[in-house]
Structures are given as C-alpha cells and as structure tokens.
C-alpha cells in the first residue's frame, strides 16, 4: 500500500454502502426481539398517548418487551383483548382501530373506521370487536379476525337524522352491546348476534350520560349523568322495567364543582355487594348496595375522582383524581368505607391497572414519563420503567371479563 495518502473506497461505493449501513443499524434498533415460545396471560400494553405507540409489557418480570408504533392519535385510547390474549385491539381517538399481535409485536390489521372515536368492546364469543364513535355518532362492529366491517349502527335521534356521540359501550351476554347517547339522553342495547340484522332497544336515561359500566355478572348497566344528580341503571335481566334512577340527588341541589376531567366508570368497582362510583363535580366516592341500589355511604376523598377501581379481591378500592389534583391516589378500605392511605405516585396519574390477582397495581405517571408499580400490600413502589406520556394500561386478564 502506498504511504502518501489513505485510500478510501471510491465515493460511489460509499454512496451505496453508507445508506445500507445506516438502514441496517436503524433496523437493529427497532426490530422486535424474536419471541421465544411463551403464554400471554401476563402480558399487557401501555399506551404512549402522544407518540401513537404502545409498549408491550409483561407483569411477571415487570418489563417492557417491545414497542409498536404507528397507531395514530392515542389520546383517550382504549384496548380490548382477543379471548386467547394474543391480540390487542387498540381504539384510537382518530378512529383508527389496530390489531396488535403481542407475541410478534406487529400490527396485523388496521382500519380507519370513524372520524372521532372513544373506545370499544369485544363480543362475548370473541368474534366481533365493536367501536364506539363520536363522529359519525354510532357503533360499528368488525370481524375480530379480519377487521372486516360487519355492522354499522348509527346513533340517530330526533326527527332530523342527527347522530349522538356514543359513550359507555359494554359487551353483554348474547353478543349484545349496551351504550349511552350523550346528546340524546338515552341508553341503547343492540343485539349483534346476527350482525346483518342488528336489533336495537332504546331506553330514556336522563340528561347527558357521559360514561357507563356493566356489573361483572353482566346484569346491571349503569350510566353516569353529567346533566343531573344521579345515575341511570338498567336491569338487563328485566329490561322491560326500564331505566331506574339511582343515587338521585346525591349532590342535594348544591352547585357542582367545575369538572376538569370526566370520571370514568368503565373500570368498575363492585366489591363486597357494593358498587363504588365517582361523584361527578364532588370530592366524593358514592357507595351503593347492589341488592337494593340504595346509597349506603359517601366517602370524602381528596378531589374529584376519575377512576374508582376495586382491587380484584374487592378488599380495597383505589381512586385517582382529576386535574389539577391528579398527582394523588387514595385507597379506600371496603370494610370500613374509609380512606386508609393517600399516595403520591407521580405527576399526572392517568390510569391504574391491577395485576390479575391484585398483588400489585401499575400506575401511569404521564408528566413523569414513567409507569410505576406499587405493591398493594405495602403500598410502596417496587418497580417502574420509562414510558413516554403514558396513559392507559391494559393487561390481558381483561380478555376473560365482561365489560372489559
């Protein structure tokens, strides 16, 4: 080799080689790891809401297994799971419905199904996923395998063909779905057992239902009302009896506080024969007996509750709060109906998810860009990991539960 100058390869060769090297190295950084044979019972997803991405997590080692990008606008995203726990159906705000394979960390199906969506549900038999939409208002059913559209049920009301925003969609036995119409003050139940011929029943509910839940047995559907004091309850075993108001006048005519975040009813809290419900516009959790549906207590809490969630064994109920008090979490003892602990797990706690048997709870701390894991026995943090602006956390144990 001559010693006067270093001879690099000709520019043309580098011109070809460099992009290839860059491409290959980038690919290394983003390629999901090759999955060893494994089950799905301890898997889950964390929504990284601002980046259109989910983290696939596992709860045994409390680690992030992979990330999946390209899911669109995930503000207020929610997730349901296929009954085998392998696929996550991610409903984005922008109407995107994505089917994510948790084992290969890939998107195996994606449709843009609406202009503005708020979540979804999966049928009892697992064959159908249903999205609830704000615009155009209604529900849409899709084949869980192919995401092919099976049914489009408009939430029309009145005489001018207006369509309402749909909230509180829940799966019911018999491939039926219950949901509420924010603009039309109704609860509807649509039977999709023959998706070509959906049959819908309508029930007047009260003013501005904002979210709803179905009890674990699939019997009672309860919608929270923004426009009045009280909740609307429909006994799905006896729907002919119509909607009954429960906890009517819980605010006792007092002016409600400004609501900076609508409470969520979906993560139901039914424990020990009682339902624990967030009082909208008040610093209270309402407790109602699920046999009589009479109020049995109201528990003063730190601020306005958003999620009121029972630990799976029902021994405790954990509560997070609306902006600007969203750095707090409180724990209610379900025997004494009292707050027994007040925690500050991080900044902007948006969501909580219990491990299937409740020994730990994962919390998303949006403004800390962290997910923190608390031991529910000691109520101390035991683990955590970085996550960009995390919101919803969803574990595959939801796959086997009605209303999730």
């Amino acid at each position, binding site marked *: *080799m001559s*010693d*006067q*100058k*270093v*001879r*690099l390869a000709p520019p043309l060769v*580098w011109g070809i080689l*460099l992009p290839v*090297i*860059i*491409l290959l*190295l*980038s690919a290394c*950084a*983003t390629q999901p790891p090759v999955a060893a044979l494994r089950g799905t019972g301890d898997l889950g997803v964390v929504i990284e*809401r*601002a*980046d259109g991405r989910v983290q696939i997590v596992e709860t045994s080692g409390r680690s992030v297994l992979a990330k999946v*990008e390209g899911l669109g*606008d*995930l*503000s*207020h995203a929610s997730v349901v799971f296929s009954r085998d726990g392998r696929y996550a159906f991610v409903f984005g*705000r*922008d109407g995107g419905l994505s089917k994510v394979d948790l084992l290969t960390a890939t998107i195996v199906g994606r449709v843009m199904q609406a202009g*503005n969506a*708020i979540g979804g549900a999966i049928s009892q038999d697992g064959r159908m996923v249903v999205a609830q939409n*704000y*615009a155009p208002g209604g529900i849409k059913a899709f084949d869980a395998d192919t995401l092919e559209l099976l049914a489009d049920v408009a939430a029309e009301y009145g005489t001018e063909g207006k369509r309402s*925003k749909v*909230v509180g969609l829940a799966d019911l036995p018999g491939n039926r779905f219950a949901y509420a119409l*924010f603009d039309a003050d109704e609860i509807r139940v649509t039977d999709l057992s023959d998706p070509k011929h959906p049959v819908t029943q309508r029930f007047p509910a009260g003013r*501005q239902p*904002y979210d709803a839940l179905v009890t674990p047995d699939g019997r009672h559907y309860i919608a929270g009302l*923004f*426009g009045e004091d009280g909740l609307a309850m429909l006994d799905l075993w006896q729907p002919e009896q119509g909607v009954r108001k429960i906890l009517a006048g819980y605010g006792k005519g007092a002016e409600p506080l*400004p*609501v*900076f*975040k*609508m409470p969520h009813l979906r993560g139901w809290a039914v424990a020990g024969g009682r339902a624990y419900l967030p009082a909208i516009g008040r610093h209270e959790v309402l407790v109602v007996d699920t046999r009589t549906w009479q109020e049995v207590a109201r528990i003063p809490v730190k601020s306005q509750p958003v999620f009121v969630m029972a630990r799976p064994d029902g021994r405790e109920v954990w509560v997070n709060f609306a*902006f*600007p*008090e*969203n*750095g*707090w979490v409180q724990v209610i003892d379900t025997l004494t109906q009292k707050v027994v602990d007040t925690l*500050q797990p991080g*900044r*902007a706690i948006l969501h909580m998810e219990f491990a299937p048997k409740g020994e730990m709870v994962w919390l998303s701390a*949006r*403004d800390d860009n962290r997910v923190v894991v608390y031991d529910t026995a000691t109520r101390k943090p035991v683990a955590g990991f970085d996550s*960009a*602006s995390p919101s919803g956390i969803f574990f595959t144990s939801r796959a086997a539960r009605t209303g999730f």
Partner: protein
Amino acid sequence: MKVPPLLAHVLVLVVAATAAAFASAADLTNSSNKDSTAVPDGQRARELVHLVRQDCGSCHGLTLAGGLGPALTPDALADKPAEGLVATVVGGRPGTPMPPFRGIVSEREAEWIVEQLMRGFPADGGPALAGGAN
C-alpha cells in the same frame, strides 16, 4: 499527516452508527420543537401549552380535532369571535361539560391561549420542568 486505513474505516462506521442512532431517536423528539412566541414567560408558556394539549385534550383531543368537546383547530375557530372564546375559557359554558378555568389561567393567559389556538396551537414541549403542577 497520514491516517491509518483501519482508523479511517472505523471513523466512517462510527459516523454511520451515530447517524442511525439519531435517525431512530428522531421519532421521539421531532414532535417537541416548535416556536413558542411567549407573552407568558417561557416556563409558563410551556405549562400552558402542556395544559391545553393534555388536559383540555382529554375532551378536545390531543390534536385538538375534537372529542366530547368541539374541535379547537384554526379552521373550526375561524368564524368565532376571540372575546367569546376567551370568555368560554375563563367562565366555562353552563349546561355543557366545559368548565371555567378561572383560577387556573388568568384572563391574559386565556387571551394568549385563544390567539395560539386560532393560529394553530404549538406542540407540547412537556410538563413544567421543576416543582410540579400538582
């Protein structure tokens, strides 16, 4: 001066690797830089942008394209008088879920927010750096 050939090749490789690393990191960062011509000071403006994107966003959408609340994009607001919008931010809108933000943002800050909304709202630079909004 003479550079050993091996070193030259290693250098090229290092440059390529760095470029690749930046390329994959770019996804994380490219959404967070945009002008924030601040009437409120930089730190407060950052807080307000975060508040609007994240907390107003829980009803109006992170992209402000609407949700339970209406869209707050420049197109959607084009025919609305700014004073009315400022009044809505400060005083809320009775009978709807829109709460008053009096006590959380000042009148002047509400005006600034409305100006930004009408021009196309800045991207979120993240939460306040120190202390905490809690």
